[in-house]
């Protein structure tokens, strides 16, 4: 169970992004990984044997939290926003949420599918 600290905090308005097509509410400056965990998403991807994997180190080292993202054309905080590259592989723990960001887990277990 993931939860946010709520007492004694000030938070701006929530933004919304999607994970595998499902809307996720998050606060600006949260990472995609934090927002997913706060929304009880634990399986971020599947490994080669088909088992679910999720964040382990939460600091960019282990690559367990890898997801694929597609950003709206004017998302400011996404450095690799390239219209020719619809889906990028990123570590969810290093990417901040943006309104309209689309996040998906990999379709093929353990491997990127360039045709999708």
């Amino acid at each position, binding site marked *: 169970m993931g939860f946010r600290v709520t007492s004694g905090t000030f938070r701006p308005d929530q933004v919304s992004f999607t994970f595998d097509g499902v809307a996720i509410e998050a606060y600006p400056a949260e990472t995609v990984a934090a927002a997913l965990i706060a929304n009880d998403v634990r399986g971020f991807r599947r490994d080669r044997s088909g088992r679910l994997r999720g964040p382990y180190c939460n600091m960019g080292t282990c690559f367990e939290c890898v997801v694929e993202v597609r950003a709206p054309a004017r998302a400011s905080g996404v450095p690799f926003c390239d219209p*020719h590259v619809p*889906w990028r*592989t990123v570590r969810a723990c290093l990417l901040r949420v943006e309104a309209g960001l689309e996040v998906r887990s990999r379709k*093929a277990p353990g491997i*990127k599918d360039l045709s999708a």
Partner: protein
Amino acid sequence: MSARYDVAIIGAGLVGCAAAFELGLRGRRVAVLDQGEVNRGASGRNAGSLHFQIEPRMLEGGADPQRLAQLIPVNLRAIEDWRELPGRLRREIELVMHGGLMVAETAGERELLVRKSEVETRGGLPVRLVEGEELSRVAPYLAERVRCASYCTAEGHANPRLVTPAFAAAARHLGGEIMTGARVGGLEGRPEGWRIHIEWLRQQSGTAAASSLDAEAVLVAAGAWSPEILAPYGVRVPLVPVALSMNVTERCAPVVHHLVQHVGRRLSVKQVEAGNVLIGGGWPASLFGSETLGPNPEVWLREDSMIGNAAMAIHVVPVLAGLNLIRTWSGIASVSVDHLPVLGAIASMPGVFIAAGESSFTLGPTYARLVSELICLGQASMPIGLYRPDRFEPAADRSA
């Protein structure tokens, strides 16, 4: 008293370990010495291409067809050698020979391919020109700007991290000894052969390591390090070290089904078994140092090479833009003025042989085979005069 061997091989890379295997099969007692580790140099750091087409650098300045034709027999032999390797080594080397495409974009580049493939076809290499609809069918992943490709059905790749260790294991199985951390301190001519003085760079476990060994013949197979091994004896090996860089992407579902090279640009692309795409083709890294490389040469990767190489790969295979690079690394290869290896006997040092230089991954097993024949039989089974170590010396200086 020094231990006696039939052949001492300097360098535990692909050529050295393959020669140890070939000589072991011929019943020779072999020792392999390396100042580093097995497969630590270019043999284990290249991108694993098996390229049998005449290389673009050979076509520079309108090379004459007769000379180009001379390059083909060794490639034909190498195709056979690679096909036999898995059976001979009985170890996994991730060998794939599913064909390779050398692509052209401009009319001038297409003309180069036409000339090249005429020579190759006459020489018996399985190469043909593919363009238009057929090219889209054979390689739908290529950019539209690629108008034409020469297609060699035998090309492919193998895993450089497996090939040399497989040769080393097979050589040991035949009784060969491989000594690592063993730097050659000197070669001393003796009536019955050569005494090799050894400087141990690391503490050896177990019994005290010998400080020398004796061998009837010596094979220098030390890649870019070969010149500095023979320099003290007045032998000028016509090889120059170059640091190159390679890149690899994250894994993805199969998309590139061939070895892809470019006739006019520096590029090689292939997708390996695990799904990663390897990108190379001769982009430089920076090599620092003086005249000798020594055991730990300083090499710096270059950001412009990494970016330029990746951009070139995307230029030819656009779908690669959707992948992340996960690693870039370098290795030190050696090149010669005529882009040919150095293979043969050292005239001024009877019993000393060399096999090093260009294309030593693709052609390495074949170089090893040929030089082993030369050592054991006094003659290789195909002409290797083109590669002789003293080919750049004035003819008057050549003895024998």
